[in-house]
């Protein structure tokens, strides 16, 4: 279920790199854990982030979760459709439910993230610890 062309973070975000732009979203596993998402808060275009920074929050009826960027860069676009209708994150977390696009500061961070297989293994281990 995790697309092969994405890179994954332990905090359950994904990154899709297109030249010097990284598209960031949350994984299908993450949206399932959260349940139906009813509120999304994203930054303004122009914000600068370092890898690991909090860039927004996502809320289901019951829970609030912070969003962390796995890579550094400047926000060049935010998904306004997802802000208006956060349910699309549940419906299509790897597609229409993307969150922000960053102009990447460096191309070395992306290599430190997990592949689809490694992320699937990571989720399995995390589930077993519960």
């Amino acid at each position, binding site marked *: 279920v995790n697309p092969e062309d994405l890179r994954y973070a332990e905090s*359950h975000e994904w990154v899709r790199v297109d030249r010097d732009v990284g598209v960031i979203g949350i994984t299908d596993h993450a949206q399932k*854990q959260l*349940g139906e998402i*009813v*509120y999304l*808060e994203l930054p303004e275009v122009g914000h600068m982030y370092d890898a690991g920074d909090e860039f927004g929050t996502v809320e289901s*009826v019951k*829970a*609030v979760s912070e969003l962390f960027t796995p890579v550094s860069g400047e926000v060049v676009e935010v998904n306004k459709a997802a802000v208006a209708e956060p349910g699309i994150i549940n419906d299509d977390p790897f597609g229409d439910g993307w969150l922000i696009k960053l102009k990447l500061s460096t191309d070395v961070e992306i290599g430190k993230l997990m592949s689809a297989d490694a992320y699937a293994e990571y989720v399995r281990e995390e589930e077993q610890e519960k």
Partner: protein
Amino acid sequence: MVSLAAAPTALRRTPLYDLHRELGAKMVDFGGWEMPVQYSGILEEHRAVRERVGLFDVSHMGEFDVTGPDALACLQRLTPNDVARLADGRIQYSAFLTERGTFVDDLLVYRKAASAYLLVVNAGNTPKDFAWATERGTGDARIVDRSADTALVAVQGPKAAVLLARLAAPDPSDLPYYGFRETAVCGAPALVSRTGYTGEDGFEVYCRPDDAARLFQALLEEGRPMGALPCGLGARDTLRLEAKMALYGNDIDDTVTAFEADLGWIVKLGKGDFIGRDALVAQKQAGVPRKLVGFEMVDRGIARHGYPAKTAAGPGLVTSGTHSPTLGKPIGLALLPSAATAVGTEFRVEIRGREAAARVVATPFYRRSEKT
């Protein structure tokens, strides 16, 4: 993204636990009980109750029998509402209050007979309530904790009456609001009351633990064609909040008086003495300093339980807050200084370090259209 914590072990389970797992429920720790928070999804379950019918396991709730020649006098002393006004087969919303007029718990009083009552209390408070009541009970009245012998299934929604009528004999669908009767559901002995915690028409079915799973399954099977869904505590919370029903531990506790909670209607100062009366009389004379009110957000954001509030008249506190599935926007309850509680008054809520504007609104947020 932070993973939601899984339910730890050593929690108490209701007789419906295995069925919940079978139905795919996500389980959480609720007041020491491992309870379903959702099955198919909170929004969908919420909608089922508003439009059709939903089934809830609320077997974790506590039940006490109060019996004996002095049962009425005892309850008049322990609770602020006027138990003498209850007829057989009728129910009253009430509370146990501290000497300060604050909540030990909120509860329901069922009158079975002049000398026999049933109290229904919050799950997490059951041991505390039982100790509190037995220490303070007066005269020839016996208080017995029946919680372990009692399972409870709530059938809530506009189709609840039609559904129960098919499975219960005698049919409870002619019961008045806050009325109850002994009946049989699927042949199992049950006490059925027209009560609930959703703001919708509905019933609560008290039965033996051994019958609970069969009953829940039969109700679900019979209800499926009319759109019935099993519903968890997540939907129960959004439903009760839209109806502005207080949740102990969130909106009311032993720091909030009955007047502050806007529950003055369960306080009958004229009925004679009861625990907490002196403090409430004094507060009424001095003026109630703060009140529980409903609010909506002006700015974006969901203000949740425990978030600080700032008003022109001083600080307040958000006691409950969520996204309202029916209204499609954030709503909440807050304890605010009385001078800032008029409908339309704007105030600020601190949402994780950011200030957002909110506005006091009339409650309940949702009122069902059909009268029952």
